[in-house]
């Protein structure tokens, strides 16, 4: 029953982004009772064989004394991860039925931030369109969550998206390694997108791409020939239902596939999030990425 609270359509009826985030995360956590691998405290997780180069501080000497073999002791619940969320505010994010892509992104980002705070991670936020609109450095102090949620709630769409320009600035903002989450509809050439984001990866950051798309973008349908107006550029293109049903879908699938493959090739996680998809999938992805960081 509580899983329903992860449904975007249900969440859209809830006012207040902090309440949305709390509802999502609580509902999500309650559904994880069968996943003991993920916890919040520093508790033993596993042993693994020592290999040259490992930090000797992590060697369990008691085991060595008994078995004369060197094992490293691993713990869960690292709290020093810095999570930085990059939210795309281009005008195309306003497309879609309720919730539109930006609203859905708000739910996703706030839920991620809320969950990160619950994990005692430091959370930061960068809002951008064709340049950086707002930057909140990662922090884990009390009240920081409200600051981030407030910024997310007040975020409005800007103009065009230009990945190259704002991402060159991100390298200045993100100086410590951590987890970088990019939430966007990625209306750009996949090669360009990946090349633009790839430098973040060089600083040992884990990069997760959340590709937000409306169902109408994935599977558009019109009754008859129509003139499609680009929300950002105002360009008009006349299309037929046949074209949208066949060639456009093929192009969109190819676009998604390219993004996915190029992201994986660059060591990034790619995750497609249609706006009618429950949010727990995104949270799972976050936790999976965070686990990879530990």
């Amino acid at each position, binding site marked *: 029953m509580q899983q329903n609270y992860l449904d975007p359509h249900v969440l859209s009826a809830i006012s207040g982004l902090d309440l949305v985030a709390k509802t999502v995360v609580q509902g999500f956590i309650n559904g994880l009772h069968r996943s003991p691998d993920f916890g919040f405290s520093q508790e033993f997780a596993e042993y693994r064989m020592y290999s040259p180069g490992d930090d000797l501080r992590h060697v369990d000497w008691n085991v060595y004394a008994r078995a004369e073999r060197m094992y490293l002791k691993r713990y869960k619940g690292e709290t020093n991860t810095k999570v930085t969320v990059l939210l795309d505010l281009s005008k*195309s994010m306003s*497309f*879609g039925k309720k919730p539109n*892509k930006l609203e859905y992104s708000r739910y996703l980002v706030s839920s991620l931030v809320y969950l990160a705070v619950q994990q005692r991670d430091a959370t930061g936020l960068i809002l951008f369109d064709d340049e950086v609109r707002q930057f909140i450095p990662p922090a884990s102090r009390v009240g920081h969550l409200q600051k981030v949620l407030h910024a997310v709630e007040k975020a409005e769409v800007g103009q065009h998206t230009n990945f190259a320009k704002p991402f060159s600035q991100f390298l200045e903002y993100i100086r410590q390694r951590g987890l970088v989450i990019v939430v966007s*509809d990625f*209306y*750009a050439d996949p090669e360009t997108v990946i090349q633009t984001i790839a430098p973040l990866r060089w600083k040992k950051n884990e990069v997760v791409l959340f590709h937000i798309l*409306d169902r109408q*973008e994935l599977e*558009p349908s*019109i*009754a*008859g*020939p*129509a*003139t*499609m*107006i*680009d*929300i*950002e*550029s105002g*360009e*008009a*293109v*006349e*299309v*037929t*239902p*046949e*074209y949208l049903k066949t*060639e*456009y879908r093929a*192009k*969109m699938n190819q*676009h998604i596939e390219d993004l996915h493959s190029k992201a994986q090739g660059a060591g990034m996680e790619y995750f497609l999030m249609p706006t009618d998809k429950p949010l727990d999938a995104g949270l799972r992805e976050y936790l999976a990425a965070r686990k990879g960081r530990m």
Partner: protein
Amino acid sequence: MGLLSPWWLLAGVVGAGLPVWLHLLQQHKQDPVEFASTMLLEKRTESTTYQRRLKYKLLMALRLLLLLLIALAFAQPYLSKPPAILNAGNTLHIVVVDNSFSMREGDRLAAAKSEATSALPTAAAAQVWSLGSHVSYLSQTSKDRGELTGAINSIGASDEKSSFAELSRALRDSARSNSRPLKVTFVTDAQRTALPPSFADLSLEPGSELKVVDIGRKLANYTIEAVNAPKTLSDLSKAKVNVTVAGINAPAAKKTVVLKVNGRSLATKTVEVPENGRATVEFTGLEGPYGWLRGEVEISDSDALSDDNRFYFAVEKADPRKVLLIEEQRSTRAGFYFKAALESSAQSFFAVEELSAGAAAAANLSNYAFVVLNDPGVNIKGIETTLRKYVESGGTIWIAAGPQSAAMPTIPVAGFTSGGSKVASRGTWRFFAPANVDPTFPSLRRTGRLEGVRFFQFASITAPEGALVAARLEDGSPLLIEKIMGEGKVLVFASTFDNISNDLPVKPGFVPFVEQTADYLGRVEDRANSFLVDSYLDLRSDQKRASSVEVIGPKGDRALSLKEAAAANTLRLTEAGFYDVRRENDRQELVAVNVDRRESALEPVGKENLQLWEQSGRGAAAAGGQPAGLDSPAPESQSFWWWVAVAAFLALMAESFLSARFLQVKA
């Protein structure tokens, strides 16, 4: 090109705006739709739309074409082209053989058939006609020489009189209806008498080529030109038969003339016929049984055309026909005068029987040639219905409307409204004279217009609608009125036959008046004792009444088909000889038919006249003009609306196919 109804095309052009408006409307229906990004809507999308637009334009063009074609079809377009008759590449050959009566001379007809056969084209289409007084079409248009030769061989000599004008008329009709030039070969003996009075009647259509093959030659010929014999007689011994024998292009000669009745020779006489002249011979007395006699006069000597040496006539031997005179009182002065006048004629065929009105009720009226009502009054009322039925079934009644009839509101039997007696007096009219007399009316032909007759008293009758007033008095009152009633007729004389109301009985016109009226009412007058070939015989007097007529021809065959026997009003007499006509009520009549004696003149037309006839079509075509007396052929208009309609149908099919393929909304 022209248009018979150009307004339709204008309406079509206006109507063509409808699909244009619809297509514009269709384009405006594409409302813009906001989309996240057109990044993936590449130029191929525009190409697809462009193709769609092209197809829509094609569809619109088809719809415009469809409307315009429909409008054009309704406008009835036509193309003007030179008359096809001037096109020499499509010639129809016609071979005409003259089979008129004169072709019986010698071996003329065989020679004509031979000439006609040799004139047949080898590979071109041809028709075979024969010409008498009418053109007979003996074959279809055919290239089969065997069929055409068979048609020529089937031609036999007829009793008809040839008519070149009839041939020209048929050729003009054929040229116009076939729309092709004609090449005509006419094999004939070219009798002068076959030429029409006006040479314009021989004109041919431009492009028609006529070649006359003249096989005739000038020959001397003798013929029985006319026979004058009585039609009906009760005493054959008094009959006088006058015969006229004519020599045509012939020298003076003695000819033996034989009178025959029913095939038996009664008398023979010799007559001296002068050169190119006529002689008359008279036979007195005929012999034969009661009924119709087949009279025949012939020249026993043979000559060039022996078939015209015989002349047929029909005579009826019968007892005098009774005329019933019905009077209010017997032995009146009027009856005396009437009876004396009718029976005094030498050729009289009637015997008068007087009866009172009461006694007439028991009489069988069908036994009388006609009935005379002398001044019928109230006593006639008892038999008026009987008399009326007698008239409607074909009888005739002559009513002398005296003072008693005039005193009644309507004239008995006739039903004419009577205004009473009108009497001359010293104060106004001392007498009334006939003022408007029709001398062609059978009763009044030899009466001298009743001049000098004075009427002192007469019935003032109002002539009903449809009645014929044959004579009027000077005050305009009808004097002699005829009215058809059913199959019969009623003749009303507005005065009496005595010398009290008028002085007609003592005038010279009285006897002819009574005699002619009796012949007319007794149907003696309307019978001729011989007819000419090609004349028409009336079969029915009442066309609305269904009755069967049987006619046996000269060869003993039935001249009428069953349908014609039931409905035909006339019969065309095509052969010389005797026609036995049996009308309704078993009334039999023998009709003698003779060949037109103009066929006996075996004298050909001059060569120059034949050449003129031959040039009448050819000359006009060569000169590009028209022959004298003929209008120039108007350019022929060839309508092609049907082809436009076919094109519109094809456009409709294409439009349906395209619209079904491109305009349907895919699910």
